[in-house]
C-alpha cells in the first residue's frame, strides 16, 4: 500500500554538529521524493540562533517560491525587542502560512509576554504557529551547548493564553505528550521525539489521532526512519494516511 507523506518538520541550512553536508532545497526535495513525501513545511537551521534572522528567512522564502508544495516557515526570534518588525513583512506575504518559534535556540523563554503577543498576532493574521520544543536529544548534545527543551507546563500555559490558536508543537517525547495531553487538547504534534513500540497507537491514547502529523526533522534525523514509523505502523491504513499527510494539510487550510 502506497502512502503519501507531508513533512511538517523539514529544514535546510547547516548544522555544525554532524558531518552531514548542509541540506538545500534541491537535496531536501530529492530525499522527499525517494521516501514518498509530496511536500512540506521548511525552515532554515541558519536562522535558529540569530537575534534578527530576517536575511536568512528572506532567503528561505526566495528559494521556496518557485517550488511546488513547499511552504517556507520563517523563524521568529523573540529575543529581539523589535520582533514585530521581523514579523510584519511575513504576515503580508501570502506564501507564509506558518511561523516557527524555537525558544531554546533563540535564547528566550516561552513564558515571556512576547510569546503570547506574537502568537496572537500570527493567529489573528490567519497564520499558524509552530513551536519547536526540541530539535536535539539534550542527553547527548554537544557539551558546549546547554539547550533545554521547553517544559510542558510552560507550553500548556502559553496555549491557554492564546484562545484562538491551534499550534503545532514539535519535538515532545512520548512522556511529555502524555503529560500535555491530559490537560490540553488544543494542539497538534509530530512524532519526531515520540517513540515507543507502535508509536502511533501509543500516542493516539493521549492525543486525538486527528492531531498527529508526520515530521521528518531532516537533516538532523533520518527521513527514512521517521517515514517508516508511519508507513509501517500497525495502525489502520486510514489512520496512517491521516497522520502521514491529511491531518497536516487540513490544519494548514483550516
Amino acid at each position: 500500500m502506497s502512502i503519501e507523506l507531508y513533512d511538517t518538520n523539514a529544514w535546510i541550512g547547516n548544522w555544525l554538529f554532524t558531518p552531514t553536508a548542509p541540506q538545500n532545497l534541491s537535496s531536501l526535495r530529492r530525499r522527499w521524493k525517494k521516501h514518498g513525501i509530496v511536500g512540506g513545511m521548511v525552515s532554515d537551521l541558519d536562522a535558529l540562533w540569530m537575534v534578527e534572522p530576517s536575511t536568512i528567512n528572506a532567503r528561505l522564502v526566495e528559494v521556496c517560491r518557485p517550488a511546488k508544495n513547499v511552504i517556507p516557515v520563517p523563524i521568529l526570534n523573540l529575543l529581539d525587542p523589535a520582533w514585530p518588525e521581523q514579523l510584519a513583512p511575513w504576515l503580508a506575504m501570502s506564501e507564509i502560512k506558518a511561523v516557527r518559534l524555537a525558544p531554546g535556540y533563540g535564547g528566550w523563554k516561552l513564558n515571556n509576554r512576547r510569546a503570547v503577543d506574537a502568537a496572537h498576532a500570527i493567529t489573528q493574521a490567519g497564520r499558524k504557529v509552530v513551536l519547536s520544543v526540541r530539535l536535539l536529544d539534550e542527553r547527548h548534545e554537544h557539551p558546549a551547548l546547554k539547550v533545554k527543551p521547553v517544559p510542558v507546563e510552560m507550553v500548556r500555559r502559553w496555549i491557554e493564553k492564546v484562545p484562538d490558536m491551534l499550534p503545532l508543537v514539535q519535538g515532545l517525547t512520548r512522556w511529555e505528550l502524555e503529560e500535555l495531553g491530559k490537560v490540553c487538547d488544543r494542539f497538534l504534534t509530530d512524532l519526531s521525539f515520540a517513540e515507543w513500540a507502535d508509536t502511533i497507537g501509543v500516542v493516539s491514547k493521549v492525543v486525538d489521532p486527528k492531531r498527529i502529523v508526520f515530521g521528518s526533522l531532516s537533516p538532523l534525523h533520518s527521513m527514512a526512519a521517521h517515514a517508516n514509523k508511519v508507513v509501517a505502523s500497525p495502525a489502520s491504513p486510514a489512520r496512517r494516511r491521516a497522520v502521514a499527510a491529511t491531518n497536516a494539510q487540513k490544519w494548514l487550510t483550516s
Partner: protein
Amino acid sequence: MSIIDIHTHPVFFNDGIKPAETRLMIKHARQQGIEHVVSLGDVLRYGRTPKSEHLRILNDETAGLIQRSRGFVVGFCYVNPLLGEKAVRAEVDRCVGEKGFRGIKLELSCNATNPAMAGVMHAAREHGVPVLQHSWNQLYKSSRSFHSDPEDTCALAKEWPDVRIIMAHLTGSGFRGVRAARGLDNLVVDTSGGGPENGLIEYAVEQLGERRVVYGSDYPIRDFPCCINRIKGADISARAKQRLLHDNAAELLGL
C-alpha cells in the same frame, strides 16, 4: 532481508510478561523481517543494583520467553557485578551453561571501569559469550560513578581483549564513542537507543568497518520500523546493511 535485533526488552517494567503480549511482539517483529530478538531482561524493575534473587526472577522470565517463542527470543543473562565473582559466576553458569543463554547483560550497577567487572569478564571468557554493556554519554555527570560513558566501555574492551564486548546505544555514545572504539577489534557497537539521528550509522561504518556495527532497537522504548529503516535508509552499501541487520549478530551469537 532477515534481521536480528540484538537489543530488546520484551518485558519492560512487567509489561509484556503475558504470553499474549509475547505473541503480539513476535508478530510485529516478524512483520518487519526480524527472525530473532535478543532479550536483555526487565533490567530496571528492581532498581539499579538488583539482588541475586531479583536477577533469578528476571533471568527466569527470559528463559520463559525463549521457551514460549520457540527460539525466536535469544536470552542474555543479566548480572550485577557488585554482588561479587561467586554470585556472578553462579548466575552465568545457570543461565548460559544450563539454559542456553548466549550473552551477558550489564546495566547501571557499576561503571565499566570498576574492578568488580573482572568477575563478569572471567565468566564471559570461560563461556565464550559476549558482554553487552549499557553506554551513554556521561561527560561532566556525577552519575558516571555507576553509569558507563562510551569511553569507559571502550576501556573495558581494551583491558579484556579476549572478551567480545557490545557497546550499547550508538546514539547515546555519539561520534565521540565511535572515535573511542577505533582499533578495538573485540568491541562492536549496537545501533539502539535514542532517536534516529542522521549521519551516525554512516560514521560508525566508516570509522569501525561494517563488521563492528550491529542492529539493535531497544524495543519497546523504540519502534521496530523506525529503527530498522534508520539502517536501510543509511548511505552505506547493501553489503554493509546486510552485515548490520543480520550477519554480524548471527556470528556474534552463533546463530
